[in-house]
């Protein structure tokens, strides 16, 4: 206990309603951090239990038992088996699904043996009532020697009682469920004394999963292993017997506490829905229909707020440019920082809409069926049914998508998913695609119905998807692993999504994007602004004079001269030098140094391409797409005398942007999730290499 505040951990199996309860307890008073040392999201928030007790609530990942399967689950074992940790909770709320008590009790019996003060929250009492189930809660509570409250986490019923209970002193259950066998008692005693542990069961976990407990130092681990070896303690030997013993206790408990079991067909509706949604043909049709709807939402509905954000930031930048005093510092603000922030904010509508859709699918229980439907096909490509969510999220932004891979328990499958997710065309590629497609593809309809431009755009998305799938397939043979892959998961009963939970997910994912990707994008935008604004001083200072001399006969307006000066400065800036420096490298793809500058700029975020191109061709307002299109169309290639942006160049650019890894923020996240530079560097080399090669082939074939 610190500063009169108590720490409460929420735990329970997946789909028991933990998030709903967490959201009820904390409201918007929550934040996402990382557990120390590992990259697992730590959701925590504050709750006023009564007038003088405040609680810090930590929402732990869903788990069936203290033997973890995924990275997410390991943290739970960690926290509960290290009583000296600063994260160790004062009290625990175990959320149990009343309709499925048996499965929820396993973890509870483990917490009882660890002597952790626990309150049992019986959730989904509404469904239990519907199913005809009747539980003697008083009996259950006395048999467990723990307080039990009935709640409905969706509606918020019972939250008041729960808070009141948590504010009161709470002692651990005096029951002891797991009887440690006599033959291992000596070794348990050694460990318990050595580490001065509170319970035998804690010592037992030190022995059972030495490698999963990362709070142990190297020497401590070696000590535990040596002791285990000396006394012939084999970690997996006792686990099965332990689980069976626990279920024996649970069955006995439930026999006494359940007055009337649920009648058999209360899940009839859910099973009926399953017959449709997992149907051999219909199941896939529905899934693709859902995907189509999501696409529609991202592209059509997000466009309105995106246009608004785009024009607002352009206006703000213009106002600042004219209102602020002159000088490099103020230029940095108006032309570097403000557009940089604008470049982050503009993606929020698409990301929010996509994660709203994903949250609805998950809340309703449909996502588990998608995993079920896709698992076999995905496995053929070295992925996992659970890779579907990250891949879909990749259409919005690779960063939250890569973070969503943490639910995949097999390291190889998770790594492959992380590796290929950036191939999915993210929202930053869309503005680049749109302008190039509009430039090189005629705006006519096929059969008077399908728009050619739309078809090409769809083709590019499919291309990215296939690149992801086939790269995954290739990696399946390259990466070797002895770790086995499992699916085994519960298919939850279908339910209406709880809308506040959807809202919280949107906020959480958007925040992740803004803070994780945002700061990298902003930093790079500023660096790029410096590169674009500065060059060798003598060349830069000459800009005005040279442009005036060149265009004296052209009768240009003041504004046109301004734009030409800007273009001249860009050409002679450090960014321009960089563009010219890489020109020999990109010439085989049909690109010149101007496109080179745009490619370099794209490392902040791909959509910067559009703004950079506009600046190079001395177009002042970046939001005026037809102007950019017009200007690009009339650009002449000095070598051929024909247009610069031929279909070959346009296609080559499109292909390049589809495949290339041009996002520093994604690389940073991959580095964090794979704990090293190896995979992000391989990813950068592979994706950019593939992009280069494909663009080269496309250009050479088409021209």
């Amino acid at each position, binding site marked *: 206990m610190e500063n009169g505040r108590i720490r409460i951990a929420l735990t329970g199996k997946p789909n028991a309603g933990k998030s709903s309860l967490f959201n009820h307890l904390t409201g918007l008073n929550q934040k996402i951090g990382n557990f120390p040392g590992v990259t697992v999201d730590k959701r925590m928030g504050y709750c006023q239990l009564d007038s003088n007790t405040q609680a810090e609530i930590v929402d732990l990942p869903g788990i069936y038992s203290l033997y973890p399967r995924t990275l997410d689950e390991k943290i739970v074992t960690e926290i509960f088996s290290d009583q000296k940790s600063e994260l160790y909770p004062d009290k625990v709320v175990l959320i149990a699904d009343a309709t499925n008590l048996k499965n929820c009790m396993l973890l509870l019996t483990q917490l009882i043996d660890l002597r952790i003060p626990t309150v049992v929250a019986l959730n989904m009492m509404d469904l239990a009532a519907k199913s005809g189930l009747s539980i003697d809660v008083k009996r259950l509570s006395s048999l467990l020697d723990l307080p039990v409250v009935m709640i409905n986490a969706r509606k918020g019923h019972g939250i008041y009682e729960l808070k009141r209970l948590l504010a009161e002193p709470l002692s651990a259950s005096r029951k002891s469920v797991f009887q440690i066998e006599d033959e291992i008692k000596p070794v348990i005693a050694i460990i318990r004394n050595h580490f001065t542990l509170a319970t035998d069961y804690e010592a037992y976990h030190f022995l059972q999963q030495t490698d999963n407990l990362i709070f142990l130092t190297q020497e401590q681990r070696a000590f535990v292993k040596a002791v285990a070896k000396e006394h012939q303690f084999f970690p997996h030997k006792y686990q099965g017997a332990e689980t069976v013993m626990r279920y024996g206790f649970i069955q006995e408990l439930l026999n006494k506490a359940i007055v009337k079991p649920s009648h058999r067909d209360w899940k009839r509706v859910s099973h009926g829905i399953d017959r449709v949604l997992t149907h051999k*043909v219909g199941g896939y049709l529905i899934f693709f229909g859902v995907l189509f709807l999501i696409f529609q939402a991202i592209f059509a509905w997000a466009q309105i707020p995106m246009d608004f954000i785009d024009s607002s930031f352009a206006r703000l930048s213009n106002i600042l440019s004219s209102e602020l005093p002159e000088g490099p510092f103020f230029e940095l603000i108006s032309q570097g920082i403000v557009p940089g922030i604008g470049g982050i904010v503009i993606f929020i509508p698409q990301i929010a809409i996509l994660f709203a859709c994903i949250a609805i699918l998950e809340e309703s229980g449909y996502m588990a069926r998608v995993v079920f439907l896709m698992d076999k096909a995905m496995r053929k490509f070295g992925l996992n049914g659970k890779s579907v969510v990250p891949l879909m999220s990749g259409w919005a932004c690779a960063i939250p998508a890569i973070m969503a891979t943490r639910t995949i328990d097999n390291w190889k499958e998770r790594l492959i998913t992380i590796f290929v997710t950036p191939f999915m065309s993210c929202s930053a590629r869309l503005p680049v695609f749109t302008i190039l497609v509009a430039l090189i593809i005629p705006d006519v309809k096929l059969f008077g119905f399908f728009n050619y431009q739309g078809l090409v755009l769809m083709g590019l998305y499919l291309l990215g998807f296939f690149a992801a799938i086939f790269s995954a397939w290739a990696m399946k043979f390259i990466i070797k692993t002895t770790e086995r892959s499992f699916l085994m998961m519960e298919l939850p009963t279908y339910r209406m999504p709880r809308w506040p939970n959807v809202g919280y997910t949107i906020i959480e994912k958007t925040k992740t994007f803004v803070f994780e990707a945002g700061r990298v994008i902003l930093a790079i935008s500023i660096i790029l602004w410096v590169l674009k604004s500065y060059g060798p001083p003598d060349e830069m200072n000459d800009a005005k004079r040279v442009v005036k001399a060149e265009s004296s006969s052209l009768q240009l307006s003041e504004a046109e001269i301004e734009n030409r000066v800007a273009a001249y400065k860009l050409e002679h800036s450090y960014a321009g030098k960089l563009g010219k420096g890489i020109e020999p490298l990109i010439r085989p793809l049909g690109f010149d140094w101007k496109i080179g500058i745009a490619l370099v700029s794209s490392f902040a975020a791909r959509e910067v391409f559009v703004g950079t191109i506009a600046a190079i061709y001395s177009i002042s307002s970046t939001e005026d797409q037809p102007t950019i299109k017009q200007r690009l169309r009339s650009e002449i290639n000095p070598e051929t005398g024909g247009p610069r942006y031929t279909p070959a160049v346009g296609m080559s650019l499109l292909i390049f942007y589809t495949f290339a890894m041009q996002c520093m923020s994604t690389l940073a996240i991959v580095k964090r999730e794979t704990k090293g530079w190896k995979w992000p560097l391989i990813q950068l080399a592979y994706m950019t290499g593939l992009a280069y090669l494909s663009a080269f082939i496309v250009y050479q074939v088409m021209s």
Partner: protein
Amino acid sequence: MAKNVAEMLPGETAIIAGFADEQIGLKLLELGLLPGTAIRFNFTAPFGDPVCVSVSDVDLSLRIDEASTISVIN
């Protein structure tokens, strides 16, 4: 006659007898698939894998490889 869950037909019920694979067995035990419990084979995914089973009122999805390690009696 001993058989495994992968050999069951949709709608069929049986009693779990044991596990052929220790690692998978431990995980299945935790999900409540205890020897002696009834298991119902519900349906398969379109390509025959994974499968959906019910054990004490819980619907689970298992890959065929996982299901085939569960021996049953009926």
